[in-house]
């Protein structure tokens, strides 16, 4: 492609870890070198591309890659943040968000759950996920079942505006009397190396929740289908290059050497392995610990997470 054009990449894989590894390789090899707001002067320009990633079986096993910037208990808590609003109470009031960088209040300006489930417009709250469920329950073929996150008044002046922009879904018949829930997400910007994987675990858990909601509402059999993830800017920050390239002189191997030195099974975990760590990782994180630690969490959210915990403790529930 002509210099100055951002590369466009397409990745199609069966499972999340396979797609994740392929995306890192592709963006590393084919991404354009370009600066971001977060690069420090001494960092090389980030690698960047517009990327569409399709995962045929988002709950296919092994579902978990071992390379991400948190522990399994922390990941479990993040899933609750996105799907059940565990940290909506960490968001600061609108009047503080409007002050943008002048605000001394260091609480967050948004959560994905807040924007998807409680989008504020003209003084009213709109539950966009309920809308998707209602719309697809009534007419599965609709192309209007979507939810947005961007708030054009609140987000532009903030330091960290939302990366996820839109969630879109549609039902298709599976040929056996049931339906498949297809979901696409659209992201403005994405840290591939340290955020993509956790984002996708959380957002596909939300995908399943929506599919369950449609099934319950419509009385139809609805299964989770393929998941498509589109990023305008999927990037590997320059500050991560040391980690990716390694340092042969110091005996530090590159990220790709690490991948090659292990079998795929040794680079991933199954949902069964992960499950106990999601409940309690033994070092202070996980759903049990979260409920113990976060005393200010609203009661209704606590109840959702307690329900989730019960489901996870049930052997039939795939995390």
């Amino acid at each position, binding site marked *: 492609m002509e210099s100055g054009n951002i590369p466009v990449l397409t990745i199609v894989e069966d499972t999340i870890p396979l797609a994740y590894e392929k995306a890192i390789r592709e963006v590393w090899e084919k991404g354009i070198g370009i600066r971001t707001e977060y690069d420090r002067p001494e960092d090389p320009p980030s690698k960047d591309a517009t990327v569409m990633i399709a995962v045929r079986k988002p709950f296919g096993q092994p579902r978990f890659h*071992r390379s991400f910037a948190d522990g399994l208990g922390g990941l479990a808590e993040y899933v609750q943040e996105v799907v059940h609003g565990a940290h909506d109470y960490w968001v600061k009031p609108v009047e503080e968000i409007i002050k943008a960088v002048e605000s001394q209040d260091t609480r967050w300006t948004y959560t994905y759950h807040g924007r998807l489930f409680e989008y504020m417009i003209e003084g009213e709250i709109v539950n966009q996920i309920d809308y998707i469920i209602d719309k697809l329950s009534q007419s599965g073929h609709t192309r209007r079942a979507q939810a947005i996150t961007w708030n054009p008044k609140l987000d532009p002046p903030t330091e960290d505006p939302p990366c996820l922009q839109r969630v879109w879904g549609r039902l298709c018949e599976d040929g056996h009397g049931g339906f498949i829930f297809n979901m696409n997400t659209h992201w403005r910007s994405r840290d591939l190396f340290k955020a993509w994987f956790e984002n996708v675990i959380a957002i596909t858990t939300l995908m399943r929740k929506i599919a369950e909601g449609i099934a319950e509402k419509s009385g139809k059999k609805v299964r989770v289908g393929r998941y498509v993830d589109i990023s305008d800017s999927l990037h590997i920050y320059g500050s991560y290059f040391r980690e990716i390239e390694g340092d042969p002189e110091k005996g530090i191997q590159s990220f790709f050497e690490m991948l090659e030195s292990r079998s795929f099974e040794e680079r991933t975990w199954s949902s069964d392995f992960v499950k106990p760590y999601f409940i309690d990782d033994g070092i202070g994180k996980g759903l049990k610990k979260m409920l113990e630690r976060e005393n200010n969490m609203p009661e209704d959210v606590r109840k959702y997470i307690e329900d989730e915990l019960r489901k996870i403790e049930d052997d039939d529930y795939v995390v």
Partner: protein
Amino acid sequence: MTIFEKIADEVQKGNSESVGALVTEALSQEMPADTIMNDGLVGGMNIVSEKFKNNECFIPEVLVSAKAMTVGLGILKPLLAEKNVKPLGRVVIGTIQGDLHDIGKNIVGMLLQGAGFEIIDLGADVHVGQFVESAKNENADLVGMSALLTTTMVNMKTVMDGLKEAGIRESVKVIIGGAPVTQAYADQIGADGYAADAATGVDIAKKLLDK
């Protein structure tokens, strides 16, 4: 393979159940608790820490190993207390006031514990006064502060001032880290060390405390 090597091996694999069983077995063979800790648990975590530094294992694996080590330490703790076994140092650690991100701090804490330090983890969004109070009350050798936001890292300077005001700055070392933090900022606020990453944090802690 000795039982200590077996414990170290299971810590590396993150196999909590085996670590617990092997530590119990070692105790039943009348092995000293401090040797089980140092040669088995800490030995295993030192290897994990070294692998992490060399890009040979992933962050979640470090934490899975840490869980296994914690299971073993839990069994040994009362016996170590009875024998008055001292840790390498006491470290008060936390994410600075206003900052709710704690993963970096957690990894450093786990690696320090794995290296034989005692960790007093104050959690995330820790009030500046709480750092000072804990450092004083716990007779800490070291304070570790983490920040992920430019807006919150300024609170590290307030902790430094607080330690001076409390008259304990000379007796406690301070290490800072986190995405926006730099060596220049550490120098500017007078911190003793800057950790660019978790593994470096452990090396600096050992160096500052002559361990």
